[in-house]
Every structure is written in structure tokens, then in C-alpha cells.
């Protein structure tokens, strides 16, 4: 369990949030031109690394807004939180 600083509501317990997986995955501009393998790569394949990862989170039981987080998956240390559309800070 850890505390997340929602960019809209402030510090809240992790149980109020839901994880949306890896962040900054760009949707292909022409999905019809992709092969099945390429589409599956975009749709399902995630890095899931042990270490610092860029993630999307949703304050599901609060303001219901999405935001981005840079988190170390090995120790749950949060390095940065930034709003959707903002450039990720350098950590």
C-alpha cells in the first residue's frame, strides 16, 4: 500500500486508484495497414519491467481523472506524477 498524490485531489490512499498500465503507447495512424502481428504488438504487448516505469493511473474512487506516473515497480517509489498531455519530467 502506498499514497498517491492525485494532481487534482491531493494525497490519497492507493486503494482509491486503479492502474491503467503502461503510458505513452501511441496508437498506429493506419490500423488497417498493419499485419495481425503488428496490431497484437500494439494492443497486448507491454514492457512490464522491474524498475522505473511510465504508467497511467485513474483516481477511480475520487475525481475519476486519468494522469501519468513514473514509478519504480521494484519498491513502489513514485518519482513523478504529471497530468495527461504534459511532457514527462526528467527523473
Amino acid at each position, binding site marked *: 500500500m502506498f499514497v498517491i498524490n492525485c494532481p487534482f*485531489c*491531493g*494525497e490519497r490512499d492507493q486503494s482509491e486508484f486503479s492502474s491503467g498500465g503502461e503510458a505513452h503507447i501511441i496508437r498506429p495512424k493506419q490500423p488497417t495497414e498493419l499485419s495481425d502481428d503488428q496490431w497484437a504488438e500494439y494492443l497486448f504487448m507491454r514492457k512490464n519491467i522491474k524498475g522505473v516505469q511510465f504508467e497511467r493511473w485513474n483516481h477511480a*474512487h*475520487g*475525481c475519476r481523472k486519468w494522469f501519468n506516473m513514473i514509478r519504480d515497480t521494484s519498491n513502489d517509489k513514485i518519482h513523478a506524477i504529471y497530468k495527461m498531455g504534459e511532457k514527462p519530467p526528467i527523473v
Partner: protein
Amino acid sequence: MLNLETSIQGNKSYNNLTISEVEPVIKINLRSKKREFSAKIGKILSIIPPVESNMSSINDNYSLLWLSPDEWLLYSNNKISNYEEQINLEDKLFNQISKLNQGAVTNVTDHLVMINLNGNKIYDLLSKGCPFNFNDFMSKKGSVAQTIVNHTDVILHNINEGNLNLFVRRSFSKHLWSWINDSARFI
């Protein structure tokens, strides 16, 4: 047709704690990202939507709670005397906001149940099943929090210290009411 039947029957009193459902109260959800929205609401209701997060605006008739940067909950401070009063307010907001593409107006009167908690132990009671830190919240007049109490989504409006309105979805209200009463016996 709105269901204005009460969800919970009666009210309960414990040592330094009173719990009661307040109904019927008008509840309207407002959503907008437009700049003109605040001025429009101010003109219709004489109340400005709070911009500061987790806060509320209150006047004689209405309270307006911040839910997210583009979402607010409006509710009447007093019980409504008739059904028409509610429909008139909804129509007025709908015609001047939704119809003009200024935002969305949704009547959630029968979607949410409002429970009033009164007494100096209400924060101890909620803390039994809630991960929210009430330290700053309790002393801040008009503060708002959306959180979970006993796994149930709630909106908390701190009118002043020791007096709080809790909004819960109608389908969860009886369950939460039972839990509150059960927990109140042990504080």
C-alpha cells in the same frame, strides 16, 4: 419519473452521534469545460462553482460541491416542498446550459441518497472503514472529499466540524446505513 421514495427509514442516535437521511433534496450533477459556465451558474443560482479542489460554495438555498475540475454537484440546503420546484430548477438549468451546449445537466436526485452525520465522533466512525485522512478535512468548513467508506463510493461534504453530509448511491445506501449503525455502537 423520479423515485423520491425514501431509501432508509428513520434516524438513529448514539452517544454523541446522530445519523439521519435527509430527503427529499434536489441533487443535480453539472459538467462543463466552458469558460462562460461559471458566470451562467452564478446568474441562475446566485452561486459560483468552486474552482479550488475539494471545496464547496454555499448560499442560502444551495450548496455546490467540487467533484473534479469539470464536474460539480448541486444540492438544495432545505427539503423541497413540491415536485414542481425540482422540475423547474432542472428545466431552467437544462434550457440555459445543456441546450446551448454550455455543459451537461443531470438530475441525480433519486440516484444519490444524502445521509447527515452529526456529532463529534463522526470522523472516528468513518475512519473505521475509510482510507481518507480526516485531519485537515474536519476543521475546514465546506471541504469536500470523494472516497470509499466500507468499499462503497461516497461524497463527503463537511458543513462544519462535527456536521457532515454523506452522499451514497441509492443501491448501496441500505448496506452503508447498516454498516454505519453497526460501527457507531463501538465508538
